[in-house]
């Protein structure tokens, strides 16, 4: 493979056909030398190529595995990639822009790094390379180009900041307003436009901007529904707000996203987006007062709830009854919610009983276990019968 080009190169040297015999030895020697050199070069090229190819294969495997791993979480209920509202979409779009730019920078820098360490590997311990000190043009170029890229990236950044800060409609123009107050470790929700007061679950109509006013009663919390919008903190003494809109009906998961103490991991909530009719029906239902329970077990439960034995009315409110406690979540329509204990377990009778039986086990550090007399050491534990009764009563609070 190397002989033909070698011969072609050498033909001017060969030239005079008459001295072919004497030159043939010379030529043969030259050809052999060239073949050996060429072969070494080829081997080197092959070695480099093998190294580079191995590296390429390894890197590709890495990229593929990273990419596949990245997809595992797809469909996660708090994913910021599968968004359902304009604010989250805007934020995702910005992320995608910088992701592309970032990957490009990554590839360029890492490829340059890999290239130099292969190409300039030390071959000889005595080699001293040229002692280059710098290059001003290069410095200026590689300062200006990244600066330009970042200036361009700044444009959607600033517009995104203002987009997320300013709801497209004000409360008077048709936006729904929710007053959210963070507590350790649950969310209180009020709808001033409707008079609804609830906890840990909000309903909103689709395709309607919703303004959430954010407050806190104790420490800093944060209101985050990843599929709908980025988070904003709930800071005691301060008035923050965010807005979002759900483009599709569904149940969206939210979680407190600012470390707020022992039960921070268990402070979550739900946002249910539904048609305007369903939403209106929900608000009307939330305003209603619950009926007196008919079933004896539930009736028993109500007495426990309101009486000294349960002591629940000291902290919880059930409108239309004597329970007017404001310390814990409002329970007037607790049975209509999909989850319990601030979004951490499904709202079933079984889970409700577990919660009443031993709240500390479900949500370590919760304030009910810490403060309610029934859960203190000097009190008799609730019996199974009492637990069933209470759960039955709460189950009627639809």
């Amino acid at each position: 493979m190397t002989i033909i080009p070698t011969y072609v190169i050498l033909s001017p040297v060969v030239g005079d056909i008459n001295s072919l015999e004497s030159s043939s030895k010379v030529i043969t020697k030259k050809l052999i030398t060239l073949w050996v050199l060429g072969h070494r070069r080829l081997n080197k090229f092959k070695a480099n190529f093998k190294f580079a190819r191995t590296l390429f294969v390894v890197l590709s495997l890495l990229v593929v595995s990273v990419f596949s791993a990245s997809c595992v979480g797809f469909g996660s209920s708090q994913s910021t990639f599968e968004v359902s509202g304009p604010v989250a979409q805007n934020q995702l779009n910005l992320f995608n822009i910088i992701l592309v730019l970032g990957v490009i920078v990554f590839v360029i820098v890492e490829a340059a790094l890999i290239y130099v360490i292969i190409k300039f590997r030390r071959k000889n311990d005595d080699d001293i390379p040229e002692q280059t000190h710098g290059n001003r043009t290069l410095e200026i170029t590689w300062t200006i180009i990244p600066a330009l890229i970042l200036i361009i990236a700044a444009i959607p950044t600033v517009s995104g900041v203002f987009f997320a800060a300013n709801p497209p409609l004000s409360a008077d123009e048709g936006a729904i307003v929710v007053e959210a107050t963070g507590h350790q470790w649950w969310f209180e929700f009020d709808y001033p436009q409707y008079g609804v007061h609830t906890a840990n679950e909000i309903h909103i109509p689709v395709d309607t901007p919703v303004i959430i006013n954010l407050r806190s009663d104790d420490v800093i919390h944060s209101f985050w529904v990843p599929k709908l919008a980025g988070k904003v903190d709930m800071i005691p003494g301060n008035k923050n707000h965010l807005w979002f809109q759900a483009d599709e009906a569904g149940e969206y998961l939210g979680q407190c996203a600012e470390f707020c103490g022992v039960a921070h991991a268990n402070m979550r909530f739900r946002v249910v987006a539904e048609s305007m009719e369903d939403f209106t029906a929900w608000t009307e239902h939330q305003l209603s007062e619950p009926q007196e329970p008919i079933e004896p077990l539930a009736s028993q439960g109500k007495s426990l709830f309101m009486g000294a034995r349960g002591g629940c009315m000291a902290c919880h409110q059930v409108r239309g009854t004597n329970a007017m406690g404001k310390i814990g979540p409002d329970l007037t329509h607790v049975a209509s919610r999909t989850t319990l204990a601030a979004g951490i377990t499904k709202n079933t009778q079984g889970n409700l009983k577990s919660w009443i039986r031993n709240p500390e086990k479900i949500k370590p550090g919760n304030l009910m276990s810490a403060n309610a007399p029934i859960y203190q050491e000097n009190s008799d534990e609730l019996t199974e019968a009492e637990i069933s009764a209470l759960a039955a009563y709460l189950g009627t609070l639809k």
Partner: protein
Amino acid sequence: MASMVFAIPRPVHPTGIWSWITTIDHKRIGILYGVTAFILFLSGGVEALLIRAQLALPDQNLVTPEVYNQLFTMHGTTMIFLAIMPLGAAFFNFVIPLQIGARDVAFPRLNAFSYWTFLAGAIILKSSWLLADAPNAGWFAYSPLTGIQANPTHGIDLWVVSLQVLGVASLAAAFNFIVTIVNLRAPGMSLMRMPIFVWMSLITAILLVLAFPVITVALFELSLDRVFGFNFFVVAAGANPVLWQHLFWVFGHPEVYILILPAMGIVSEILPTFSKKPLFGYPAVVLAGAIIAFMGWMVWSHHMFTVGLGPIANSVFAITTMAIAVPTGVKVLNWIATLWGGSISFRTPMLFALGFIAMFTIGGISGVMHAMAPSDAQQQDTYFIVAHIHYVLFGGAIFAIMAGIYYWFPKFSGKMYNESLGKLHFWIMTIGFNISFFPMHFAGMYGMPRRIYIYNEGMGWEIYNMLSTVGAFMMAFSFLIFIYNIVTNWRNGEDAPDDPWDARTLEWSISSPPPEYNFVNIPVVKTLDDWWNTKHEDSDHLPMPAAGGSEDAEEHHDIHLPQPSYWPIILSFGLMLLGFGFIYNFYVGGLGAAIAMIAVYAWSFEPVNDPEPENNNH
């Protein structure tokens, strides 16, 4: 004189444990810092492994949330204040005087004091585990969660006091190194002929001097609230908890540059040595470091994008934060240009330095993603941030520190480490690191908040958490290899030559380890990379005198060295008692204050060298 007044003779312990306790030799202090900080790094690592064990599977209850919250608080505080900063100080101490051609730092006793006070602060913080009352509000301790109402036990007080004590240590060291670098350079070593590591250290020291007082004030304010009922962060009195965040992050952002600039300095030394080429664009790298330090003061509210500062503030800080990527990028590109055209050898220090570039680039890119405030609104307080910080702090600072330890190991120990074990450490650590932290980007984007002790099955985060845990244990294993390598070779390794790497700076011109006085004669410097030029240019560069180490050199030259002292450690002890006493017992605190006052006076009366020559151990 004053020693007579206080009836305590000057220490004269050339060997043994007392020589370490009273040492003021920068090389020994550097070793003390390094060993102590590494042990504390391991303790922070154990805290991390417990965190990862708890999060490996969903719905686990290996630890209670109370303990978990203490674990992540202690892990973060330990790694930043008890590991990375003092490891940096270890390098400042050992390397800077050698690189600038000095015999010691400007204030040797103050230097010892910095170390012992750091140890005191470390004891105060770590003792919180033993007192079953570790701080639990995260390493940045947002108010009002740290208030006396929300957090009545002493954990937060221990955190506050330890950081105040550590602050004293850091400030003292920073003052010392500023004066040393500015005022003790060898003749001919202008600022632009200093090794790049010395430049980065100078910039870091200036940042420390200006940034630490801000957190000192924040910590005082928190203490005054908790202990004396002041109202700095009491919402009912009209206070704004966001004040804490502003004060903390005005300190906190320069702090991260304090963590990374020395690391960048180390890498900037290693790359040229193992490519046999000078650092490309030395003035640009110096300028970039200075610009990063300056701009680092204008970005702090990028930690507060979700606090509700308003769109104008958020826009401004987004832009300034993106701007800081430019000088950072300039450094990375200069490093690559240094490698270009070089003759690259892949010894362990170089592997870690190259790993630094690769990992820090990833961390820098995710940093720019955070800079863009709208996308940060989704990333803030999630594992995406955890991924970013570990890529820059572990993939960045720790990799560089490992590089530095291997690089200067021959110099400080006089022995060679085992190269194969070093490489093995590198590969296992790098692979484990990426397996651990890369998946966190995904966990974060899929909605996993940070600082949660538990997550439920079905959230889609399981695989990422499991990978992170596996990777963490791989990293831990790699450190076992490192410890084995360093410990066995420090004792029994092959003797190291003066200049095993054919390096470029002055510390390689003297013996390994250097003699106590460092240089027989203080060198006269003619260029940047003076040692390299001495070796490789046969121009009019004067040959260096024989590398130091011969005993008779001492007899021939009038070398005066500063003498050991008891007062630094006594003052540190007084401060430690004052710290504990402030929290637990007024009399202990009073005793500590009294000891401290006495030590300050005794120290100021003690001459740098004992006037009686027979008490000198030279």
